[in-house]
């Protein structure tokens, strides 16, 4: 059994005052192994974004634990929290979140320079990751000079260049057209298989989700079900299974996409 990178144990998150409590997360437990590509699916309001925020230290659980590399992140504060985010997590967001006054190269390099990597090594590592993600030709460009797909791959490069324990992707294809989405998902798979990055992706898009190796479904804050990809079968089969499950999950096809 490979090492557990992330463990979520009995996670609960409440909103609101006493007497009028909404449970955004209701006793959710799961774990992610090293080198795994996990997808989390659920309709809007199912709690998947809350879950991601709690894992990414942006929000805190009301009850339960999140362990990353065996460390309880709820106990982290101040400098330790910053250091944890810097060293253990990589983020990819729906709206890219690139610094738009810096070039692609500088955006990626910044993640390394705040880790105090020396500039020669920064150069090598940025070039290497750029090659893997096929963004070498846009390295000297600014975000506004790039396509959405390129921007998201730059963001992905920034997220993984520091070799974080866990890459968190929040609807990474949300702002991309279908062609760019496909290219990005292929890039993520490449990162996952070639660099052995552990990726946790939240999405409500069945097509994107089909690139993951395992998917957990959340409904109304609870863990609904879990799907494993059969490595022997083509991705299309997995996609169909996801669509099926989603239909059961929502009970309403219109809600799915």
């Amino acid at each position, binding site marked *: 059994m490979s090492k557990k990178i992330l463990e979520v144990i009995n996670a609960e998150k409440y909103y609101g005052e006493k007497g009028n409590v909404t449970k955004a997360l209701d006793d959710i437990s799961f774990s992610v192994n090293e080198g795994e590509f996990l997808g989390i699916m659920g309709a809007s309001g199912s709690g998947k974004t809350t879950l991601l925020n709690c894992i990414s230290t942006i929000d805190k659980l009301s009850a339960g634990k999140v362990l990353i590399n065996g460390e309880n992140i709820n106990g982290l504060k101040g400098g330790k929290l910053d250091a944890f985010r810097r060293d253990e997590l990589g*983020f990819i967001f729906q709206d890219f979140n690139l610094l738009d006054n810096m070039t692609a190269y500088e955006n990626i390099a910044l993640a*390394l320079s*705040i880790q105090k990597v*020396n500039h020669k090594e920064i150069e090598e590592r940025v070039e290497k990751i750029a090659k893997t993600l096929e963004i070498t030709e846009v390295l000297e460009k600014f975000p506004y000079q790039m396509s959405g797909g390129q921007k998201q791959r730059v963001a992905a490069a920034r997220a993984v260049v520091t070799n974080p324990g866990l890459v968190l992707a929040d609807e990474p294809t949300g702002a991309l057209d279908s062609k760019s989405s496909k290219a990005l998902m292929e890039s993520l798979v490449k990162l996952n298989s070639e660099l052995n990055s552990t990726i946790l992706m939240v999405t409500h898009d069945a097509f994107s989700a089909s690139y993951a190796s395992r998917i957990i479904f959340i409904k109304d804050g609870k863990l609904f079900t879990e799907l494993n990809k059969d490595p022997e079968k083509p991705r299309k089969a997995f996609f169909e299974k996801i669509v099926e499950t989603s239909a059961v999950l929502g009970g309403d096809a219109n809600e799915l996409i």
Partner: protein
Amino acid sequence: MNSFKIALKNIKKSRKDYSVYFLTLILGVAIFYMFNSLDGQGAMNSISRSTNSAIQALVSIIEAVSVIVAVILGLLIVYANNFLIKRRKKEFGLYMLLGMGKRKVSKILVAETGMVGLMSLAVGIGLGIFGSQFFSIIVAKMFDLDLSDYRFVFSHTALIKTVINYVVIFAAVLVFNTITVSKYKLLDLLNAEKRQEKNLLRNSTVSVIVFVAAVAFLTYANIRVCFFGEDLTRNAMFTCIIGGMVSIFALFWSASGFIFDVLRRFKGFYSKNINSFITRQFVGNVNSSSVSMALICLMLFASLVIFSSGFSLRSFINAKIGNGGTPVDVTLRYEGDSAVGVLNDNGVDPYDIFDEYVELPLIKCPASITLGSLLGDYLAEGKENFRMADWDYPQSVMSLSNYNEIQKLFGRKEVKLEENEYLVICDFQMYAQYADKALKAGTTVTIGDTTLYPAKDKCSDEFLLMSGLGANGTYVILPDSVIENNPDCFEDFATFMAGNYVTKDKEESYAYDDALKIGLGIDLENEEASLDKMVITKNDVRDSGIGNTVLVVFIVLYIGTIFVISSAAIIALKILSDSIDSTGKFKILGRMGVTDKMRKNALFTQILLNFALPFVVAFIETVFGLGFVRDMLKAFGFINMGSGITFALVVMVIIYGGYFVTTYINSKRIVDLR
């Protein structure tokens, strides 16, 4: 909810956003009131005894300057207001999305602007009233004035003037706001925050070339103006000034590209921590505000120069009206046989007034000693600069023994001359600079058969008639024998009289001044009309000296302060508006694990650099510029500028620093760092 209530809520909610706006409005109102209320102040009463004209001049100059100040403040307020609207585009978009008409949005804005204006006007005037009392005390201290008649003064005219000015400015702001709102498109308002920055840096090669060229020209102009300023022709001067201004604009235009190009080459520095981010932010700021930065630099330069020269002039005049410049109570020049005789005829006995006095003849020699002849070979040069002068005007001559009597009374050293020497007395440097050259060249004076040579190679920096500004006439001192041996050459011309009063009491001395003037037939209401009778008393010199200094110092303070406030406010507003645009960036940095401390540092460095850049350039220019000012003022025998610069820097640092701190605190809040 009516628009008034919404407006009130909005102000409460965003009072911190308003802080720089408030600060600027309040300071503007307060300063405007303070200077316009000057004529009623206690300190002024003490100065104004016999120098009402100086105060009148001050008031009318301040009125004129106030018009310019009002325009500057008006523009500044429109600019600041624009910033506030930008900050709230999304909010307006939301109002409109909810079905509120543009008219209603305008109404809310009108109510807000009106209330903010009213509040700052009230606070500003309050501050101005107390500030002006404080100011009075400082002025009194500055010029050793008697504060016994000090009282709390409230100036109605200043209040009315201030209110009218601000009502006009705010009316302009209202019109401007309404136009702005009517032009808004809902989509742009809602997307205001999402818009992507397209802040392309200028081409780096071009930037480097322009930057180097600008620095090279500035260095050249600075050195020429500072060290060789006296030798510059009018055209060269013009080239230096206009070229210098163009260079400043070029410098700021190219600064972003140049700085970036240089810093990027230091890879160790650039890829350390978040230096690349700070550099990009700073360079982006400079890039997008190069024109305003250049203007700010010029404004700071102007205020530094006028502050320093104004205050140096103050110490200079204070020194001139001290004992060195006023050795006796009264000096007078009377074109007639005897001033004493006229006084006696008019019933004023000099023995009643004077403890000691001398009356000595001034003679002239139109054939040999004129304004032009003393310049010798340098007459042509002098003519070029004083086109209006009457070069055949005979200069006053006095015998050596008579002059030494004056020297004794004035407490100065006795003068010795050889039989074939002459001495030129002149403390008016505009003329003396040519006379000095002529004396150095050994220009001779021929009286009858006698040829006289210069006793000194320059003019003696002394005077007969007292004067606050060192602008006396020229006198030629000749050996007694020369005058005795050539009676045909000389004509009687006037008499010179100097003396000390019997009284030491100030009030009484004023009465003696008047008695003396009336006794000589001078019209007290219009003293300047009688050039043939010039009475200059110690009181006159001191009062007009103080009057002139106060005039200079106040106007300098007024303009300088407004310039510094405007500059600081423009930078502050620009930074705050950039901070709003940078909120997302700081959030991203946080998510990447950049610590709060590091982000605060980044923000601090960025803001500091923005404030420092125009200031440093202005300061360097000032150092060279003052070199030139010093050369110009040397004409009046004036050297020391140290205290002026120190004072200017202190004023600058207080105002500018205040804005810097306010900006930093607010930016921190805007980008959500606490």
